[in-house]
């Protein structure tokens, strides 16, 4: 299965899938909890992004206060190689 590159768009898309929402209803300022994303769902996202090359873990992503902060944390953890 080919994984698309880890971009902001992909992160938004996968967040939306987890939240069961259309992707344009996910706002950068939304809090994770307000999207109804619980630990099972968040963990699956962590695994997906880790597989795409981001050195992330659950606690650091969960600490994100907003979607915007989460995107920054994920992209910031992508290894350059």
């Amino acid at each position: 299965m080919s994984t698309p590159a880890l971009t902001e768009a992909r992160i938004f898309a996968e967040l939306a899938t987890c939240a069961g929402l259309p992707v344009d209803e996910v706002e950068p300022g939304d809090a994770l909890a307000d999207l109804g994303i619980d630990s099972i769902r968040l963990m699956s996202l962590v695994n997906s992004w880790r597989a795409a090359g981001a050195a992330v873990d659950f606690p650091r992503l969960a600490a994100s206060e907003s979607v915007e902060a989460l995107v920054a944390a994920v992209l910031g953890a992508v290894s350059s190689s």
Partner: protein
Amino acid sequence: MTLAPDTVKTYPLTDAQRGIVHAELAAPDTADFSVGDAVVFRGRISAAALAEAVRSTLDEVPWLACRFDVQQMALVPDCMPRRPAAPGLLPSGVLRGELTGDSDKVLADALRATHLPRITLDSQLLREQLLLTCAEDDVQPVAVWVLAAHHILIDGYSISLLARRVSEHYTALVQGTEPAPAPFTQPEAVRRGEEQYHASNALARDASYWHERLQPAQGEEYRPTRLAGLLGAAGQRPDAAAVQRLRISGRPLDLGRFAAPNAVQGPGTWADAAIAAHALLAARLTGSTRAVLGLPAMNRTGAAALCPAPTINVLPLVVDIDPSGSIDTLLEEVSAARAKLTVHGRYRAEQLMRDLSLVGSDTALTASEINIKAFDAPLEVPGGTVALHALSEGPVDDICLNLLPDYQAQKVTAVLTAPAGTLAVADAAVLLEAYGLLFEQLAAAPGTTPHTALMLSPQVQRGPLAGAPAAEAVPPVLEELFAASVAATPEAPAITCEGITLSYRQLSLRADAVAAGLLRAGIGPGGYVLIALERGIDYVASILGIAAAGATSVPLDPNAPRQRNQRIAARLAQLEENPPLVLSGQAEHWTGFSVLDPAQLPPAGLELQLPAVPRSTPGYLLHTSGSTGEPKAVVVSREAFSHWAGYHRHAGFFNAGVQRIAQSLPLHFDGAWCTLLGVALGHHLHLISHESARDPQQLAAQVREHSMTWMDMTPSLAAPLLDTGVFDPGTPVRRLSVGGEGCSQVLWEKLRGLGHLVVENLYGPTEFTVDALVANVADSPDVVVGRPLNGLKAMVLDASLRPLPAGLPGELYLAGPQEAHGYLGQGALTAARFVADPSATGTRMYRTGDRAVIGHDGLLRFLGREDSQVKIRGYRIDVGEVESALATLPGVAHAVVRARGARLLAWAVAGQEFDAAGWREALGQILPPQMIPHALGIIEQLPLGSTGKLDEKQLPDPAAGAAAPAAPLTGSLQQAVAAAMAEALGMQPEQLGPDSDFFAQGGDSITAIALVSGLREAGYSSSVGEVFALRTIASIAAAATVLSAGPENPAAQRPELVALEDGARDRLAAMLARRRPRR
């Protein structure tokens, strides 16, 4: 080294920590809030580096080295010198060197068994830890860091944070690099986040959501799903591991169509299926369409994501199961509810309890819980891997499920935990298997499948429990049996009553006289004849005569109020075209009816022609008490009766030669037939008088005098009879039949002890003709109702009429030729109780309304109409267990325990040796504190109803009529204490004296608060701690002081979400004070 107080940093509690304190407060000494984990390092692990890594990590988390200070409601650093992690060896039996897939489980099990301390809020150290190694030198193939702490410090998520940091430190040490800066946030940051939430709009929004969601249906109360207690006493057999919490693992479950745990989860995940399976299982077993399951809200965003401290908040997940719904609709419902719980998850469960007025009541917010673990990727260190194993997950109040995903194998395992003594291991295994099956069906079946089609047991075509085949297809009816006996042994004694004995020939003459009289009076086939006679030979002769005439007998209770019997007659007259006839010696009481007096009837002439009536013609009509008060009239046909009689003739006691039968049960009760049948089969029936039947001594004397060989009675009658020694070796009695009401475990064991007698337990509703299930007491060490009579079927079905596997409780249904016609004049009720049998076309089955379970030995167990477990102060208590314990005290002949309101009351029939002053302490040696009855009344004998069953309403209130206290109260303080105590306990102050002990009078920790409050209102200050310590009115009064206005308690600085008023705070202190002597 001691630090000056103002340099010591204290950690005020977060919301979750307060919640935990409250939970420990509400559940006394038995609550176990120890949480434990094993962090297992495998590979080539340096023990020294690991120890150093652990120390460094713990240095970064100073609040974990604290103890709990109840006055400040905070964690304060413990001033004792820190012990280094003590190295030890891994428990023997753990595989070292070569690792197999099983070794972690073996390790976890061994650690669970040996290394878990019990930590309570008053423990000096709230945290204990061990470092376990297996090799002598530094390099370990396996090293385990065991961390055990009170839940107030950590939860599973915290442990994973700590394990991760230990790995980082270890890696840095081994590689010689600097570790990343400590990632942890302080509890202070979490508290700030909570304060922001409390001040925000989100709080109101969340409150509004929960209040609306938890609104119960009209007129009902809020009730969480409870699975503990499903099996009642039947689930608490000796193997139920009385001391340890139950924890069993199921087999790994296939995820089917659900995305693997490490793929992006859209709506409709395996977690939703896990919850749906739990909800379905609960609904099927409880018969409810609403499941309210406890689900922890994550609440780990923001500062809480990186703080090793608990954020636990278990909220109710409400699943309303649409009876016609499909798998897809069920999963959607669950998914939506779960998302909403996450969104509104910061609203504290403790606050919800206050909102719903549940605080102080017997209802919890949640009971059965489901925990879905989300695991991060396995950690790695140089030269090894790290895995976490939960050793103890915190307190369980009910049967709970924990779901553990396995990312490698793409499966998930369910682990069932339950409080000690809740259910036996075998039954837990069945429950877990049923759960697993439901889960896998949800994962594999097409989404459009109706969820009612899902099975709880792989045995799809499970047959009902069937009795052996009947000996005869068309057994003779009553009148045929009697006629045959008369012809066979006309001169043999048939019936004896008060010194008079009739032979079979003589009895048949009497019966024929009645038959002739009825026929002359125009009674046709199936015509109703009421027997309004005194207990005696004429009563029995009438039954036989009515049968011979082809009519239907309606036996009446001679001791019932006359109006009751008259109402029965009037109702029959309304319903039937042909007016009923009354057999009575007092025609003046039966104006409007044809009356015949059997004592005055002439003998039947030789021209007597007895009609042949169809077998379907009603044989008798008996009334059973309906739950609404109005008795139901059950009509039983000759056909049904003939089959019942056929069983007892062939397989029952009648085959062992001519019996001398003691007939002691009332003749208006169908249980009487057990022995009454003897008079139709050539045996000798002794009609015991009503008075003798209630007097064990008289009854015993008669048994001996007439060398009775067989007796039949209710358990309430059997119990005192056993005490007379009439069944001791040397007794003429050979056979005992017990039935009519549930048999207690205590009585069962006594009956089993009568090795020289054959003792059977019979169960049967009137609607199934006398009895339907039979067990020999030798069949099982615990009480069973056994198996169906020959030719009958018994089924335990769920609410969808599907058969349940052994071990799962459901409703008992009966099918077979013994079914009654129905209820006279109540067609709708009849249709509701006699329903179509889904497993056999064209036949009916009777729903008994009784809960039962098929044991793993194939024998049925009766679970009672209502839970035999009662709730007292939030505890589930099985009254049978308390009765058994009470019965072991010296001098106690019989014990009855019942809940009346919030009090657990006991009654004992006790002799001289009974210690009336020390019974409480004696019971305290056997039972946990919450199961000790509040009051005990000594009674002469068990009060029985008209049918010989225990009449609970006649049990007197043990507290009332207590002897007036010897000394009067002196002083206004004592009076005030007595008044407050009486108010708190629902008693009269006149019943109390200076030496009255609060707890002996039925007080407990909750009523102690009421006592202190009441005293405060009267202007006196006391404390719960003092009440516990001092106990008597005189002592409490002596220590109480006059209340003066003073400053507010300075410790309560922050507006408390969960207000702990002084009383509760004192209570906590008292509880902790009580605990200390035991350590």
